């Protein structure tokens, strides 16, 4: 399949259409919703990485919050300790390097196990990082966290600008470009021979080993790649939020990552993206309706697992295939 085949696929036009819609979104959405949407997009970048592990490698991580926090804290610490280097073109690579290191350490320990053992190990390690972020308050700011200033983007300073102006202007376009790049890269990864190898490991690790795939090593690669996407999401999120606190390393947030992915549907490549954006709104509306919003989120999760185990996109795919089949078999 060459470049031309990719362009001629109908899916390509859908993507292109979505991207164009995204470009015009600041003109349509009110500022408040736009910022909410941006935070959804950063979650989507993270969820893409998370789903590389869940869908394509068959590993459910309950510790991705820590990797997200790594990316966000990398930005925050750079602002604290190296204010001269507070430029987006330096911050992003630093965040990626940070999440590379952390995910390599986490991955090295976690991929020795699979299934629930993997999940618990990831959870435990993420809580270690959470504890460090809280306890080392003279370095990390403890539970107060770190304030995130507006970065210099390609030499352009935004000092004195209001955050919402910054977020609805240049930063929005930067964010969707990063998001588009992340989506394309992830799409390439999952369809490549490497991605196929991961799927083989997920399906049957014994056989995967017997066709000459180094199972553990490939799981580690997958974990690191996933960590990079998550860290990137964290870094991009930190500017949107304006403040990082240790809560994002806690298991509650790790659980929310799982929730987003399940909500969107992890069986479909685009599922986590949709899940992440929907989740941002869902949480907001739940909070605005009742103070027992967590109860509401939990209830939705139960309904989701019972009625739509493959998430929203999974449900749509099922519906479409049913509608397609209906005329030929005569069964509605």
């Amino acid at each position: 399949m060459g470049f031309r085949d990719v362009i001629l696929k109908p899916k390509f036009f859908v993507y292109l259409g979505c991207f164009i819609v995204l470009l015009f979104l600041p003109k349509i959405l009110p500022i408040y919703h736009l910022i909410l949407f941006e935070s959804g997009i950063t979650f989507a970048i993270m969820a893409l990485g998370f789903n590389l592990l869940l869908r394509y490698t068959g590993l459910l991580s309950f510790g991705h919050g820590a990797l997200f926090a790594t990316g966000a804290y990398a930005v925050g610490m750079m602002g604290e300790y190296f204010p001269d280097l507070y430029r987006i073109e330096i911050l992003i690579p630093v965040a990626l390097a940070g999440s590379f290191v952390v995910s390599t350490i986490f991955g090295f320990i976690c991929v020795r196990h699979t299934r629930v053992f993997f999940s618990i190990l990831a959870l435990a390690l993420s809580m270690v990082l959470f504890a460090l972020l809280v306890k080392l308050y003279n370095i990390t700011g403890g539970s107060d966290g770190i304030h995130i200033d507006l970065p210099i983007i390609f030499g352009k300073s935004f000092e004195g600008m209001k955050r919402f102006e910054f977020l609805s202007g240049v930063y929005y376009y930067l964010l969707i470009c990063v998001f588009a790049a992340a989506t394309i890269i992830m799409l390439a990864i999952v369809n490549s021979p490497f991605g196929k190898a991961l799927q083989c490991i997920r399906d049957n690790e014994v056989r995967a080993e017997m066709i000459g795939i180094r199972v553990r090593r490939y799981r580690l690669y997958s974990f690191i790649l996933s960590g990079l996407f998550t860290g990137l999401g964290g870094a991009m999120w930190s500017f949107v939020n304006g403040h990082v606190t240790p809560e994002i390393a806690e298991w509650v947030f790790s659980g929310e990552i799982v929730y987003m992915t399940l909500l969107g549907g992890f069986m479909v490549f685009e599922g986590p993206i949709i899940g992440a954006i929907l989740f941002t709104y869902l949480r907001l509306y739940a909070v605005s309706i009742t103070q027992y919003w967590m109860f509401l989120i939990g209830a939705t999760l139960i309904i989701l697992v019972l009625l739509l185990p493959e998430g929203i996109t999974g449900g749509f795919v099922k519906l479409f295939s049913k509608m397609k089949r209906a005329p030929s078999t005569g069964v509605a």
Partner: protein
Amino acid sequence: MLEVKELVKDFGRVRIINSADFKVEADEIVSLVGPNGAGKTTLVNLISGHILPTSGTITFLARNITFASPYKRIKMGVARNFQITNLFPDTSVLDNVRTCLFSVYGKIKRGVLPASHYRSITEEAVGILDLFGISGKKDLMPPSLSEGDKKILDTAMAFALKSKFLLLDEPTSGVATGDKFKVMDTIVTAIRREKMACMIIEHDMDIVSDYSDRVLVLSDGRIIAAGSPKEIMEQDDVKEILFGVKV
């Protein structure tokens, strides 16, 4: 090519393989026969590195591989199929074979271009499926195949690894009786053409005598007889073990 010496495998206090000794020469197709529980599959597992022996040595191409990892053995050229089919259920039939080829050609680490970009490998994968007569089902998922087709796919995957030595654990079990010879014809023709050595575990004595150069008889973890199919079938003790008839 392959030499197994005084190989012993204990599972707890039960000795499954009891000092097995045999050789397989290059280009040779050897059948391994024996009653149920003789240790045939265990022997395959030991040679492929699936499990490790208690004592003894396995030498392949003059190198000691007794405790080598399965990965190393595959890179050296020992491939196997599985008696109980062992496929990648959520991956298409084509990808089941194609991933084997990516692994063989060292392209498995490529993470940028889509798998379908590697045209020659895709064509080769389709060619292998064609050879085994299941290329029409390349886009299906393995669980929707018949048991026989699954078995054939399993063998095709082992074959795709382009090994020097192929271990086939009952390649025709589960295949419809009428198709057995057709499947064996396919496999054996392909093996002969690629000049692979091969060890086949088989119960059907007609298949054994038609397709193998040599037969090894395994009983209670020991090789009790070896020779051409004809010689073997004439030995009374072998008949007694294999068919349970007192001669």
